[in-house]
Every structure is written in C-alpha cells, then in structure tokens.
C-alpha cells in the first residue's frame, strides 16, 4: 500500500513535471497551478474518511481547476474512477467490454478497460449532500448568466436546506434580476419546508407575483386532503395564506396566457395581413380578382432563396436585401401580367379570375422546372431566433414579434403611398372615375399597371416573410390564396383598415379556437364563419355604403 502510494505520487509528479516543462515556455505560473490541481485531485484516490473527502471536495470547489464542476458532478453521479494499475483518476462510463475511460487531468481518451481494472471513488449520503451544495454554488458563481439562471431554477426544483448558505452568498453578489428572482423563489421553497411558521408564511408571501410554476404546484399540493379527509398541510394559517397567494398567481398566469394567445393570434393575423394586403389593392382597389396572387408570394419566397444563394456568408443581412428584391421581382411580373392579360379583361371579373388562375399554373410550373419541385430551405438570420422573456409565464418569440412589426410597417407605408403621394392620388382617381381621370391627362393604362405592380410587389414582400415561416416550394402560394381572399372579403373590399381588422381578428379567433378544436377544425370553423358572415354582410365588415356601390 505504502509503496504503491509512493509510486503513484511519483508517477503523477513525473507526469506533471513533463507537462510543466512543456508549458513552461508559455506560462510558467499557470503550469504550476495545473500541477497543484492535479495533486489535489489525486488526493481523492487516497482519501478514505468522509471528513477527508469533505475537505477535499471543498478544496477542489475553491481551487481554480477549470473542470472542477465536471469532476465534482462525476463524483456525485458515481462516474469517477481510478485505474488500479497506475492509480490515475478517470471518468468511466460503462461499455460492453468494461468501461470507457477518460483521464480527468488532461481529458485524454484512454480507451476501454476491463471492469476489474478500475475502482470507483465511493461517496456516502452525507457527501452527496455536500456535493449538491458545492455544485450548486459553483454554478451560481459561473460567469455565464444562463448557467447561473438554470442553476437557480434547478434549486427551485430540488429545495434542500443545505443550499441555503450557497444561495445567500450568491444573492449577495448577483446582479442579474432574473437570477436574483429565481434565487428568492429558491429560498422561499426551502423555507416552506422549515418548522417555523413565520418563515413559512414569509416564503408563501415571497411567491406572490412570481408566476413560478413549481411554486404554484407546491401551493396547490398544500390544499390537498388525505384519504380520511384531513388536510395534508395541518397548519391552517399557512394553508389559507397559500390558497390566497395561489389563486392570485393563477389569475395572473391566466391573464398572461391570454396575452400570449392574443400575441400568437396577432402574429398569425400579421401573416394574413401581409398576404392579403396586396390582394386588397388588386381586388379592393382595382376590382381585379388575381388568382395568381399566391404565386406572387411564391416568387418573393424564391427571391429570398436566390439572394441567400448569392450571399451565403451574409445570411443575417440577406433578408434586408431580399425585401426590395422580392418587391421588384413580383412587381415586375405583376406588371407583365397586367399588360399582357388583365388589361384586356377589365369589367369582366369572372374572366379575370380564370385567366389569372391560368397564369398561376404557368408560374408554378415555371418554378418547378427551374428550381425542381422539391422544397428549398431558406435559413433564418440569427436575429430572428430567440425570444423575449417577459416573466415566468410569458415569453414572446422574436420572429413573431418582428412579423407583427413588419406587417404594420408595410401597411402604414402602403397607406402613406395611397393617401399622401401623387402616384397614390392618381391611383385613387383612376379607380373612382376612369373616364374623368383619363380626360385630366392621367395615363390610366400606366396607373393600372403600376397599381397592379404595387399589389403584386407587396405580395412578393409577404413571400419574404413566408419564407421564414413555412416551406418554400412551388405550392406555397396556393396554401395562402384562399385565406387571403377570405380576409379581404371579410374586411370589406376597398378598405385597407377593414383588411387590417379582418386579418387580426381572424388570426386571434383562430388561435383561441385552436386549443379546444385543433388547428384544422379551427380553420374549418373560421371558413364556415366567413361563409355565413358573407350572407349577413355581402360586402364585408367595412364595406363602403352608398349609391356608388349599389349596382
């Protein structure tokens, strides 16, 4: 034993001398530290008594060994072994032929070794408790705020008095509010199990306004009765105050759930708004039924795809380039369609519907022939991922948030263009009285083409947004065209505010129906609702009333 111990120390020393020699040229101090750490770690192999091990654990935790957390958690999980032959500390994971081992000191993979050739560093329950506290404190001291936050959340889930000291120390230095809040909940969770009524009542009070789901389930559990009808929680005062705080928390959580549903609904509504607003121009303002509207969106989505192919190293900026590009591509195609086909069909809406449907088939097949019928993957820029966490019950994803903002910006720009610019004035003049506009010198044909191009271009922009939400394929447009028509018809033709209102309310209605009807059935309900709604108001919600639209 003694001999082997001496031998072991020698080997380790030799190993580290070699390392130190290697590292000396760079940072001599650091290598000395490394050698110290290695010695410290290897003490684990020889330490026998619980108190020795406890001391060692604390020493390791307070050392500056970079992987100390990993070593300690391996120790706790029972994955820390040493090789009997050369008494080297290793991580060991079971393998059909024994154990797969890795050196703790330098992370070198030492291959597979027979199960008899290694021995586990054993721990007992007392040590496990110590380890939990030490590990928690280690994570709480981490420089990475996400590590600290998840450590705090772990503590909430496994409240145990031995963490209290670590938590209090962490609180003293914590600067992040979210982490601090979680730590407070963790303290409260621990105190809830104490014997002191005052501490428990304080703990319950601390939950107020936190929306923590674990806290809510604990408080709910305190209201349960056993099989004989007695409350599990025998302290009436504690139970009642728990009930009060619980109902307040539930009410608040419900409200946030509602807010979240509205948010989901608005984001769906924004997608609808984007897809429908172009149609509101061509259908609402010009009276043209453009069945190829969906394909204009598809072209926008494919433009995004092509832009990303052209600038593969700048995916984050590709969307910014794609928006104007898609507007131009779809807008130009729209102008070609207007000049080539629709121009000959004004005043014959049903014929326009059929002809543009034909155009949509041609565009679909063209895309299929050029890009293949398979879906293309369009990557999302990094700034679109992630979410904005407002509190425990509410977090808003950035892509949904951006799409709401984006659709509103598009709508406002469109309103501005129509109401405040000369081109918009001409567009409105031509729609209201073509002959009069013509006689005032407005080139109505040119304005028609431009208006149609505008509607199509906006569909292209919608396509850019859709490329972030759905598969980009030749059939992309078809899945949105009916929804877009529903929105325009529901909102009232010729009224952009109506389109906005319809898109948002249909989006929200859909999201509120989904939980108890399922997505497909919710959609069916919405369709049936609109079919019935049209019976009641054949010209939509915000139809222009008056003589001009009667015939």
């Amino acid at each position, binding site marked *: 034993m003694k001999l082997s111990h001496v031998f072991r120390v020698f080997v380790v020393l030799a190993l580290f001398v070699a390392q130190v020699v290697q590292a000396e040229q760079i940072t001599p101090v650091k290598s000395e530290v490394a050698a110290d750490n290695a010695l410290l770690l290897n003490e684990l192999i020889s330490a026998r008594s619980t108190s020795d091990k406890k001391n060692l654990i604390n020493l390791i935790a307070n050392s500056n060994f970079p992987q100390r957390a990993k070593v300690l958690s391996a120790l706790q999980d029972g994955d820390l072994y040493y090789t009997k032959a050369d008494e080297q500390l290793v991580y060991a994971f079971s393998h059909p032929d024994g154990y797969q081992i890795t050196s703790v000191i330098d992370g070198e993979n030492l291959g597979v070794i027979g199960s008899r050739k290694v021995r586990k560093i054993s721990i007992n329950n007392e040590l496990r408790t110590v380890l939990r506290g030490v590990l928690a404190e280690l994570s709480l001291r981490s420089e990475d705020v996400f590590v600290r936050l998840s450590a705090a959340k772990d503590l909430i889930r496994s409240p145990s008095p031995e963490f209290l000291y670590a938590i209090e120390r962490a609180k003293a230095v914590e600067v992040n509010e979210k982490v601090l809040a979680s730590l407070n909940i963790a303290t409260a969770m621990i105190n809830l199990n104490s014997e002191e009524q005052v501490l428990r009542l304080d703990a319950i009070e601390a939950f107020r306004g936190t929306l923590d789901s674990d806290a809510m389930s604990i408080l709910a559990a305190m209201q349960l009765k056993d099989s004989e009808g007695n409350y599990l929680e025998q302290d009436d005062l504690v139970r009642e105050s728990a009930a009060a705080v619980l109902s307040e928390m539930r009410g608040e959580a419900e409200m946030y759930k509602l807010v979240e549903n509205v948010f989901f609904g608005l984001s769906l509504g924004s997608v609808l708004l984007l897809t429908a607003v172009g149609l509101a121009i061509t259908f609402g303002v010009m009276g043209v039924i453009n069945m190829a509207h969906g394909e204009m969106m598809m072209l926008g989505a494919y433009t995004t795809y092509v832009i990303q192919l052209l600038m593969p190293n700048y995916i984050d900026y590709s969307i910014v380039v794609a928006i104007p590009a898609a507007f131009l591509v779809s807008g130009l195609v729209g102008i070609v369609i207007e000049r080539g086909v629709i121009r000959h069909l004004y005043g014959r809406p049903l014929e326009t519907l059929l002809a543009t449907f034909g155009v949509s088939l041609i565009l679909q097949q063209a895309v299929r022939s050029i890009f293949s019928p398979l879906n293309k993957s369009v990557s999302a820029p990094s700034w679109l991922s992630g979410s904005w966490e407002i509190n425990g019950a509410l977090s808003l994803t950035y892509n949904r948030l951006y799409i709401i903002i984006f659709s509103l910006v598009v709508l406002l720009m469109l309103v501005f263009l129509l109401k405040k610019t000369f081109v918009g004035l001409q567009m409105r003049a031509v729609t209201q009285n073509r002959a009069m506009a013509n006689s005032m010198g407005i080139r109505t044909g040119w304005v028609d083409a431009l208006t149609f191009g505008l509607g199509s271009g906006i569909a292209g922009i919608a396509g850019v947004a859709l490329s972030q939400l759905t598969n980009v394929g030749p059939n992309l447009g078809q899945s949105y065209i009916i929804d877009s028509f529903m929105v325009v018809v529901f909102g009232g033709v010729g009224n952009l505010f109506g389109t906005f209102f319809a898109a948002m309310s249909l989006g929200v209605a859909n999201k509120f129906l989904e939980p108890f009807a399922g997505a497909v059935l919710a959609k069916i309900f919405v369709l049936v609702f609109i079919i019935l709604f049209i019976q009641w108001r054949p010209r939509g919600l915000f139809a*222009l*009333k*008056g*003589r001009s639209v*009667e015939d």
Partner: protein
Amino acid sequence: MSAVVKSPGFHSAEMQSMLYLNGVTKSFDGFKAINNLSLDIAPGELRAIIGPNGAGKSTMMDIITGKTRPDSGQVRFRDSIDLTQYDEADIANLGIGRKFQKPTVVETLSVWQNVELALAGTRSVLHALFHTLSSEQTDKVNDVIKLVGLKEKAGDIAGSLSHGQKQWLEIGMLIVQGPELLLVDEPAAGMTDHETMETAALLKEINKDHTVVVVEHDMDFIKALDSKVTVLHEGSVLAEGRLEVVSANPRVIEVYLGR
C-alpha cells in the same frame, strides 16, 4: 292644356292614393339622400318628377320598389299596403312596374321572349318549368310588341336593338306585366327629339289604363307629358304643381340655374 288625366270609376271609389310617401328619410354614411320626403300620387295620375343630379330621384325609386329600405317614414301602396315590408319581387307582383334609367332588357333573348317573360302570370319555378303559352297570352304579347312599335323586330335579339328601341321594349315589358303603377326612370335619356316625342305620346297612351310616375331631366319631354310636376331637391320636395307654375317658382329657378 287639360287637367290631370283621371278616369273616374277606373279604381275603386274608396282608394285615396295609389302611392303615398310620408316623411321618408334615407341616409348613406351620414349623407341624407332622401330627407323627410312626402309624395301623394292619386290613382290614374300621370306625375313627372324632376330635380337636379343627386336630388334623390333614383333613391326614391329604389325605396318604392323595395331595393332600398328607408331609415324612417311611411311608404304605402293602394292606401293599405306597407311597401317597406316587401322585396322587389313581391312589390313587382303587387302591381308596381319599374323601368330603369339605363335600358335593361335581356340582351341575349329575343324581343318576343323578353316580353313573354314579363307577361303577367304565376312566377313560381314549377310553373315556369312546365309552362306553355295559351293563344290568348300569345296575342297579348303580340299586341304589346305592336304597341311599342317593335313588331318588325319581334324575332330579333334584344341586344341588337337601338338605344331608343330598348327603352320601348322595356316599357312594353312593364305594360305586359300588368301593373297598376308604373315608375319610369328617364325614359327619354339618349333619345332623338323625334323618339322623345313618341315616347311621351306612348306614356300618355299607357296612362289611360295605368298610374304613371316619370322621372325626367328633359324639359321638352315634361312639357309634352303635360302633367303635374314635382321638383325634388336635396332629398325632399321643393315645389309641386303645373309646369308653368313650378318653373316660375324662384327657388326652383335658383336650384336649376344656380345662384
């Protein structure tokens, strides 16, 4: 210049008025197209209604024929029938015929078929499916076509008729419908002078058996009709009476000639 044509005994003695509007108001998005309008058409009367653009003439026609519901006011037919309770088809079957401002005939059917469709009779689907014309009905159709001067054109597609001929065909369709009250919207619009005079004569002829309300712009036509005139302005009655009297009214002159 005779008095208003009235054929005594033509209608039951008790009936006071063929058409009675009282305090009718209709607004579109805040704009009052009809404002507290009152009108009383006696049985057998021929009445001309004039007024500048936007005076509410067409809206008034829409309200009488059930196309538009008034916001308030009474609309009564033959004293007792509340027209606001019925829709276009009901009102047509009650005995009110309407001619549109723009001639509307079924352009793809022949003149004869147009008149046949308008011919009074059961309007049910089943009846139409198994319907065949009696010789009496055939005669009736032929007579009306003759009356409106389209005998030569009976087999032609209505779409091939001239503008004036379409107006006549539409009037013919109104007559064959057998209404008691005819509402005629700008029958002389787009007609030659000669056609205008013929149309006036035709309406006077029709007035022998029907009550007729004519909306018109053309002053020569109104003169030729030689009837009581109602002037509409901003949705209500500005003046009423013989044309000579009305046209001397300073307010009418102001409205028509501007300040």
